[in-house]
C-alpha cells in the first residue's frame, strides 16, 4: 500500500507551502485533483497584505495595526491572538516570497510596491500587477520542482479515514487509471480550498466544490462558522469572474444608474474601500432599490484612471473585460454585481493548524483557524495560505514523529476503498434515475436565492427543506455510459454529497444565528448581538446528522466595538 509520513491534499498555495516547509527527512507527498498550477489560488489578483510600510502614505504602518484592521474587519469574530500571529508573520513571509523569486511590482527605489485595499488603515497590499496569485503559485511550484516534492496529480481524494480520533489516511480516485486506491499516512494536511460552487453566482473556479471540508465533516471532524460566506462586491456581470478590489484600490468608482458614487451613503469615509461585506450589501441594496441597471448590476468605473495606469496596474482586469465582456475598461465602465467569493468558515483547527483528530491538519481556505471571523479583508487570504500553510507543514512534521503507524490501518483503509468501489458500482449499475448536475443546479439556486447576501428566517427554513428534498433525490442518482477513466461525472457525483452537507451546515448555522455580523446579514435581526452571539458555530456529524455547538472567541486586546468606515 502506498504510504507516506505526511500527505498533503491540495496543490494550491496552502498545500505547496505545507509541502515545502515539511521536514525533508520525512516522506512527504502532495495529492491534487488537478495539476497544482490549475489550482484556484492561481486566480487571486489584487495582492497580499503585510505591514512593510513601503507606501509613502503608509510609513507608520505596523503589524499590530494590520492585526487590528483584520479583527475589526472580521466584526470581532476572529480569534485575536491568531490574527496577530498571521500579521506578525506576514512581514518575513513577503521577504521570503521575494527571495524565492516572486516578481512583486516595485516602487521607486526598488522596494516592494503596496496599494490600498478595503478595510485597511494603511496601504499595505503587496502585488504583482493584478496577477499576484498566479506569480506566487508558480513560484512555489517552481521550488517544489527544485526540492523534488512528490506529486500525485489528478488524484481525487474521495474520503478521509479516521478511527478512534486518529487519522489513518485517505482513499483516492485516480482519474488517469479510473482506480480506487487507499493511501496510508501518519499525518494528513488538507489544503483543499473553499466551497464557492455551492452557490450559483461565484467567482470561484469550476472545481471548488468544497469536498475537502465535506470529507472532514463526514469523518467526524468539527467544522466551524460556515454561515459566514463572503460575497465579493465586484464580479463581472455574466460569468461572475472576479474584478479585483485592487481596481478600487487604484481609484475606481462604484456608480449607480443615477451616475452617483453611492458609497457615500454607506461608508462616507472609506467610500469604495470599505470592507467587502459592507460594499457588497451597498451594491445589492442599490440594485434592489431600482438604482442599478436592468435590476442586475451597477458600474465599476475606471475610465478616470487613464489608459497608462490601467495597462500597468490592472492588465489582467482589462484582459478579462475584453475576453469575457467584449469591453475595454479604458473607455467603458464595467458592469458588476456581488457574487460568492470566499468561505470564511471551514475545518476547525487551532493556531498550529491541528484539528481534534490526531494527525489531521488543515490550512488555507478549507480551514477556519480563525483569522477572518465574520468577514475577510482583501489581501488576507493569500497571506493566510502562505503563513498557515507553512505552519501546518512544520507542525505536522514535529508531531508526526510522535505518531506511530496504526497496526490495523492497512486493513481499515482497504475496507474503506472497497466500500467506495461498491458505492461507485451502485451508481453505474443503475440505468435510470436522476442526473447529478440537475440536483447541483437546484442546490446552487436555493443557496443563491435564499442563503445569499440578505437572509431571513422564512427563506432559510425553506432552503433547509429544499436541501433535504435534494438529499432524498441524491439516493437516485446514476451514471450512464461505461467509463471510469477521466470521469469528471463520477467526481461530480461524489463531491455532490459534500455539497449537500455544506449547504445544510451553512443554512442551519445561518438560521440559528439570530443576529447580523460581518457577511451574515439577517433582515429580521439587523443588529450585532455580542451578548448572545459573540461565539463560533461548531458543527459535528454525529449519529448521521449535524450537531451544533458553540465555542468562545479569543478576545485578549480589542473590545468589540461598532464598526464604522
Amino acid at each position, binding site marked *: 500500500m502506498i504510504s507516506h509520513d505526511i500527505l498533503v491534499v491540495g496543490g494550491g498555495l496552502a498545500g505547496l507551502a505545507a509541502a515545502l516547509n515539511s521536514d525533508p527527512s520525512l516522506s512527504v507527498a502532495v495529492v491534487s485533483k488537478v495539476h497544482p*498550477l490549475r489550482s484556484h489560488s492561481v486566480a487571486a489578483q489584487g495582492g497580499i497584505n503585510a505591514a512593510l510600510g513601503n507606501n509613502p502614505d503608509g510609513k507608520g504602518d505596523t503589524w499590530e495595526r494590520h492585526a487590528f484592521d483584520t479583527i475589526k474587519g472580521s466584526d470581532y469574530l476572529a480569534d485575536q491572538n491568531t490574527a496577530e500571529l498571521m500579521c506578525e508573520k506576514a512581514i518575513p513571509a513577503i521577504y521570503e516570497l521575494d*527571495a524565492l*523569486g516572486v516578481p512583486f*511590482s516595485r*516602487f521607486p527605489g526598488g522596494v516592494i510596491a503596496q496599494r490600498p485595499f478595503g478595510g485597511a488603515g494603511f496601504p499595505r497590499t503587496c502585488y504583482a500587477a493584478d496577477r499576484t496569485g498566479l506569480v506566487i503559485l*508558480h513560484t512555489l511550484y517552481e521550488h517544489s520542482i527544485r526540492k523534488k516534492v512528490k506529486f500525485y496529480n489528478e488524484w481525487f481524494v474521495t474520503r478521509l479515514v479516521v478511527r478512534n480520533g486518529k487519522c489513518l489516511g485517505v482513499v483516492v480516485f485516480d482519474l488517469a487509471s479510473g482506480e480506487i486506491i487507499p493511501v496510508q499516512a501518519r499525518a494528513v494536511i488538507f489544503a483543499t480550498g473553499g466551497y464557492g460552487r455551492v452557490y450559483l453566482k461565484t467567482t470561484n473556479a*469550476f472545481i471548488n466544490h468544497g469536498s475537502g471540508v465535506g470529507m472532514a465533516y463526514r469523518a467526524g471532524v468539527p467544522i466551524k462558522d460556515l454561515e459566514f460566506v463572503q460575497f465579493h462586491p465586484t464580479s463581472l456581470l455574466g*460569468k461572475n469572474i472576479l474584478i479585483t478590489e485592487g481596481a478600487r484600490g487604484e481609484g475606481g468608482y462604484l456608480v449607480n444608474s443615477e451616475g452617483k458614487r453611492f458609497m457615500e451613503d454607506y461608508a462616507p469615509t472609506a467610500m469604495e474601500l470599505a470592507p467587502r461585506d459592507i460594499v457588497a450589501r451597498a451594491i445589492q441594496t442599490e440594485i434592489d432599490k431600482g438604482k442599478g441597471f436592468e435590476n442586475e448590476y451597477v458600474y465599476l468605473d475606471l475610465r478616470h484612471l487613464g489608459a497608462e495606469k490601467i495597462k500597468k496596474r490592472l492588465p489582467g482586469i482589462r484582459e478579462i473585460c475584453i475576453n469575457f465582456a467584449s469591453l475595454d475598461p479604458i473607455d467603458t465602465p464595467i458592469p458588476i454585481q456581488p457574487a460568492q467569493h470566499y468561505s470564511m468558515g471551514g475545518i476547525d483547527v487551532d493556531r498550529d493548524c491541528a484539528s481534534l483528530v490526531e494527525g489531521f491538519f488543515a490550512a488555507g481556505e478549507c480551514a477556519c483557524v480563525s483569522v477572518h471571523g465574520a468577514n475577510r479583508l482583501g489581501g488576507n487570504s493569500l497571506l493566510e495560505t502562505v503563513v498557515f500553510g507553512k505552519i501546518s507543514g512544520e507542525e505536522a512534521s514535529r508531531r508526526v514523529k510522535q505518531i506511530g503507524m496504526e497496526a490495523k490501518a492497512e486493513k481499515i483503509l482497504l475496507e474503506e476503498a472497497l466500500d467506495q468501489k461498491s458505492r461507485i458500482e451502485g451508481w453505474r449499475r443503475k440505468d435510470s434515475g436522476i442526473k447529478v448536475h440537475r440536483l447541483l443546479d437546484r442546490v446552487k439556486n436555493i443557496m443563491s436565492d435564499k442563503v445569499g447576501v440578505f437572509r431571513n428566517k422564512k427563506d432559510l427554513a425553506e432552503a433547509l427543506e429544499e436541501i433535504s428534498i435534494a438529499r432524498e433525490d441524491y439516493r437516485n442518482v446514476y451514471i450512464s*455510459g461505461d467509463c471510469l477513466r477521466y470521469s469528471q461525472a463520477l467526481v461530480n457525483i461524489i463531491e455532490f454529497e459534500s455539497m449537500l452537507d455544506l449547504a445544510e451546515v451553512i443554512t442551519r448555522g445561518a438560521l440559528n444565528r439570530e443576529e447580523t455580523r460581518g457577511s451574515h446579514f439577517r433582515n429580521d435581526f439587523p443588529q450585532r448581538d455580542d451578548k448572545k452571539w459573540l461565539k463560533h458555530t461548531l458543527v459535528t456529524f454525529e449519529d448521521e446528522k449535524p450537531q451544533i455547538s458553540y465555542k468562545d472567541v479569543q478576545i485578549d486586546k480589542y473590545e468589540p466595538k461598532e464598526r464604522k468606515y
Partner: protein
Amino acid sequence: MDTIFRILRFDPKKDEYPYFQDFSYTVEGKRSVLEALMDIRNEQDCTLSFRYSCREAICGSCAMVINGNFDLACRADLGALKSSTIIIEPLPNLEIQKDLVVDMDPFWEALYRIEPYLHGEDAIPEKGHRVDDREMEIIFQYINCILCGCCYAACPVATRDERYLGPAALAKLYRFVRDPRDRRAFSNWSGVNTEGGVWGCDTVFKCNEVCPKDVRPADGIEALRRRLVVEKVKRFFKRGR
C-alpha cells in the same frame, strides 16, 4: 438552430483509432466552448473527458484546438466563432490519454530541464531585494505564461524533434536569466546553445501566434540567442587578455 459539435474521441484502452463524434447542441445565451462541452457531457454523454478549472483563462487547463485554432476553451465564445459546425480536437504533438485530455509530461519535463526556479542567494535579503520596477516590467511579459501548452503543441520543431525544449520552457529560462535577483551562472544555462535549445527554433513564430496570453515566447528565445552570443564574445576576449 442547433450547432454541431464534432469532437475527437479516443480511449487508447478501448479504441484502435481516434474518431470524430457529432453532438447536436442548442446554444442558449452567451456560452463558451468549455460551457458547451460541460453541457454536452452532462446531458448527452458523461464519458466525454476534458480538463478544466478556473474558466477565466488563468489556470491553463483547457487548451485545445477549436476549428483549427489553438485556444483555451473557456475563453472561446461560441457566438464569436460564427460557425454551425465546431470541430474540437485535443492539443496535437502530445499523446491522447482520453478524448481531449493529453499527456502533458513531455511539456513538463522540458520545463524541468531548464531549472525553472530562481537561483537566489542563500540568505533572505533584509527588507527584500531592491529591484527597479522597469526590470520587473520586462520579465512580466514572460510571467504572464500560464503553461497551458498551446505553444509547445503548435511548434513545428517540437513536433519533429523531441530533444527540443520548446517555446514555453525557453521563454521561462529567459524570465530567470533576465531577473536581476537570479544568480545562476552562465554555465548553468549555456547548455541551451544547441539545436535542442535556442538554435532549434525555426523562427516561424507559431508560438507567438497561438499564445492565448500574448507572452510571445519567441521574443525570449531571440533574447537568449543574443545573450549567448554576447557572453561568448565576452569570454573570448577575457581569455585573450
